[in-house]
């Protein structure tokens, strides 16, 4: 990087204040436009035909009747989507996932798509498509998929990470091992060893807005895609590759996004919408139904794991081991590998070992879900940590403090940590009033900590100064939850002007250089960095213009509090020039004033959180009520505290739903039974209390403002915090997420209560 990204420990005037967000009015009045809110003249309705089988060969696919129906303008099957990837690799998998080729791999896998003049005609076309299947044996459970004799999901997948390379295909696509030291030696030194197995069921990110797009391809191959996405540049890359289009000819505009959490970082229907539009020569609008979203987008993994931790009576952990089995859906991926990396990341361990098995199943292709893979491993590990602490007779917070990772600790995934916040979050939990609140009958308290990586990535920002001194701040990172406010605060801070003078907007792909997807908690960190440097470039230009206006050397000009000041006694007669004054004069001093920055923000650091929760378990119904919840997390620097709190609360709420109620339920026929919000039960307003938050600010040394990513980490501790709380309330150790009423009742029954 050309700029110095070190933390400068400055005092802020604007950053850190709780301003109103610039996109607020549009969102509360219904004016804001999301994926399904765009229309184009002559647009067609796009609908999909999807497999009703978990695993089958397509023996016949005849669309000829459908194509002839009046009002049907295009029908797409895999025959219209040539394989440009030699039949293998990530992009090939994406192509197959978007539209099945010779076989269907999960219930809901797309088989064909139609574009017609209205819904009724499109539905008629779907009915007229003749498709025959030869049903194949399927497997949907991760452990069953690993058992000998399990149906093979993909004959071309051989287990990676084995030496020598195997010759028979397997549902295990990869085995990954992390760790250091010798766990056998460590366990031999332990006074107490706890070993337990856990399972977590599959969940979905559950964004309220279904995937939707409006695709418009012209006869010359130029295309427009309006789409709800976390990364419009990434979508441009993916779609142009899949369809063989020039990247620059495909303009992707990000609509407002109605939730993503990782599920909108990949393409599902978008390439097909473009293919339909290209064939029909008319715009095609595709809006997924909620049923399709559950069946045919990217939920997270279901898992099965074995955790073993040993410790001395004085509380020192001597060895820790996690064996993780994660199902990735019907395509190879590395989610278990990530779980193995994060398993013991909170702790300072001499001996640790994590093994991840990535497994294929006849389920949809897994996508990232907010700190992907970490919450499940944390459920197992943090539950066993509590069990070990209880066995030794040590307070669970003290036990964690004693073993917490710190600067200089060798992380369980390899590298040595720089300054990190796990210790401070645990100390904050220890001293929090929540820990001293009294508990009543059937009530229990649990706490847990969690870790996640933060990322940087390609980012660029444009700052353009209008002649009235107001600022257009152009971003390329999709705003998922308040970034326009935060970036405006940063821009205003750097320029020394009021927040209200800055107007932020998210540009389309033809207006700005590539920006990576908004994921990995990178938005504020990366865009913030680029905004700072773009603003500083603008200031350089502003000073140069002021120098021109005064006729003095530019070395004699300083910038402070939104104005140029002439320094030196010989210039003491010159009144300051405000940004607005310099801007007004800009047509005569060299034209429009702008600042620009491209940066690959990197070295983002890592993020830790600790949660506390109190629950009450009804022993008759098995129902759990969350009474109180506290999130403590390190944000480095909270640019807009309201939105940092919002991330903490939102992640916690998703974790609570995952812990208590959310799960994909598959029948013996391999079909998803609960593809709707009635039976896939996410938390509602009456399920939750107010969620208390404490923002710690331990500066990230690699960012001028000390910013750390915050968006993901708060979904990592809740499964275990709730697990520990429910276990304490019910008096039995819970080992299967979600801890729904039937599971709690069964656990109570099994324990003879």
């Amino acid at each position, binding site marked *: *990087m050309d700029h110095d990204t070190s933390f400068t420990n400055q005092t802020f005037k604007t950053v850190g204040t709780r301003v109103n967000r610039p996109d607020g009015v549009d969102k509360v009045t219904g004016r804001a436009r999301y994926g399904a809110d765009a229309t184009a003249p002559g647009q067609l309705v796009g609908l999909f035909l999807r497999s009703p089988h978990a695993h089958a060969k397509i023996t016949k696919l005849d669309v000829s009747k459908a194509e002839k129906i009046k009002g049907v303008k295009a029908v797409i099957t895999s025959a219209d989507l040539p394989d440009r990837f030699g039949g293998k*690799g*990530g992009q090939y998998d994406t192509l197959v996932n978007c539209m099945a080729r010779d076989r269907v791999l999960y219930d809901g896998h797309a088989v064909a798509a139609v574009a017609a003049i209205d819904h009724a005609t499109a539905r008629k076309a779907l009915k007229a498509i003749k498709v025959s299947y030869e049903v194949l044996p399927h497997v949907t459970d991760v452990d069953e998929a690993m058992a000998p004799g399990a149906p093979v999901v993909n004959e071309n997948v051989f287990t*990676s*990470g*084995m*030496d020598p390379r195997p010759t028979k295909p397997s549902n295990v696509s*990869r085995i*990954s*091992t*992390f760790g250091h030291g010798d766990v056998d030696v460590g366990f031999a030194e332990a006074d107490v060893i706890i070993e337990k197995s856990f399972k977590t069921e599959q969940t979905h*990110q559950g964004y309220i807005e279904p995937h939707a797009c409006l695709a418009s391809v012209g006869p010359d191959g130029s295309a427009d895609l309006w789409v709800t996405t976390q990364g419009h540049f990434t979508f441009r890359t993916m779609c142009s590759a899949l369809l063989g289009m020039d990247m620059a000819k495909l303009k992707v505009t990000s609509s407002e996004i109605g939730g993503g*959490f*990782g*599920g909108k*970082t990949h393409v599902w229907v978008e390439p097909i919408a473009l293919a339909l539009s290209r064939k029909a020569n008319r715009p095609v609008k595709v809006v997924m139904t909620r049923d399709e979203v559950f069946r045919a987008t990217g939920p997270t993994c279901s898992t099965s794991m074995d955790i073993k931790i040993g410790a001395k009576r004085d509380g020192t952990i001597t060895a820790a081991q996690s064996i993780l089995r994660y199902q990735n859906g019907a395509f190879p991926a*590395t989610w278990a*590998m*990530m779980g*193995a*990396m994060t398993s013991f990341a909170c702790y300072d361990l001499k001996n640790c070992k994590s093994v991840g098995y990535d497994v294929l199943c006849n389920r949809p292709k897994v*996508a*990232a*879900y*907010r*700190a*992907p893979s970490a919450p499940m491993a944390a459920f197992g590990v943090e539950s066993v940590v509590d069990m070990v602490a209880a066995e030794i007779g040590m307070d669970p917070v003290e036990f964690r403090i004693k073993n917490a990772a710190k600067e200089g600790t060798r*992380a369980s*995934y*390899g*590298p*040595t*940590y*720089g300054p990190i916040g796990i210790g401070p979050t645990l100390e904050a939990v220890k001293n929090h009033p929540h820990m001293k609140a009294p508990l009543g009958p059937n009530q229990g308290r649990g706490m847990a900590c969690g870790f*996640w*990586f*933060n*990322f*940087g*990535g*390609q980012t660029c920002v444009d700052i353009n100064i209008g002649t009235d001194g107001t600022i257009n701040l152009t971003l390329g990172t999709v705003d998922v939850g308040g970034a326009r406010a935060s970036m405006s605060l940063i821009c205003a801070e750097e320029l020394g002007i009021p927040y209200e003078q800055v107007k932020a907007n998210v540009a389309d792909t033809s207006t700005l250089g590539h920006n990576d997807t908004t*994921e*990995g*908690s*990178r938005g504020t960190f990366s865009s913030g960095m680029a905004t700072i440097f773009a603003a500083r470039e603008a200031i350089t230009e502003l000073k140069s213009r002021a120098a021109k206006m005064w006729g003095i050397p530019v070395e004699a000009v300083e910038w402070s509090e939104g104005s140029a000041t002439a320094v030196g006694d010989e210039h003491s007669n010159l009144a300051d020039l405000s940004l607005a004054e310099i801007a007004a004069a800009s047509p005569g001093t060299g034209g429009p004033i702008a600042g620009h920055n491209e940066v*690959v923000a*990197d*070295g*983002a*650091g*890592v993020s830790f959180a600790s949660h506390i929760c109190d629950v009450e378990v009804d022993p008759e119904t098995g129902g759990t009520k969350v009474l109180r919840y506290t999130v403590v997390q390190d944000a480095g620097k909270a640019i807009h505290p309201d939105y940092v709190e919002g991330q903490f609360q939102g992640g916690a709420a998703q974790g609570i739903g995952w812990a208590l109620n959310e799960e994909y339920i598959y029948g013996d026929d391999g079909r998803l039974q609960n593809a709707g919000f009635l039976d896939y039960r996410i938390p509602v307003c009456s399920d939750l209390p107010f969620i208390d938050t404490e923002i710690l600010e331990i500066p990230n040394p*690699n960012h001028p403002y000390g910013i750390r990513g915050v968006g*993901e980490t708060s979904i990592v501790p809740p499964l275990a915090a709730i697990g520990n709380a429910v276990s304490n309330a019910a008096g039995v150790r819970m080992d299967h997420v979600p801890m729904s009423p039937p599971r709690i009742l069964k656990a109570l029954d099994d324990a003879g209560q």
Partner: protein
Amino acid sequence: MKVSLSGVLRAAAGGAEDIEIEATTIRDLMDRLLDRYPAMQEHVADGGIAVSIDGQIYRDTLGQPIPEGAEVFLLPRLAGG
């Protein structure tokens, strides 16, 4: 300098946990690594390799210099959600 390899990458380096290799930047390191261990190509193609320098993880910055005496770790490239 010593470069440590995480789990999946070790197999491509004949099982070694640590290797001795000289490099001044990440790009330099990647070039020499692929030269010496062609099997690494699979991981580079798969989605890439991330480099941790003194605990900071770099995913994209090929030009990032590697200081003398830095702790260097190669990890699989990661993504968030």
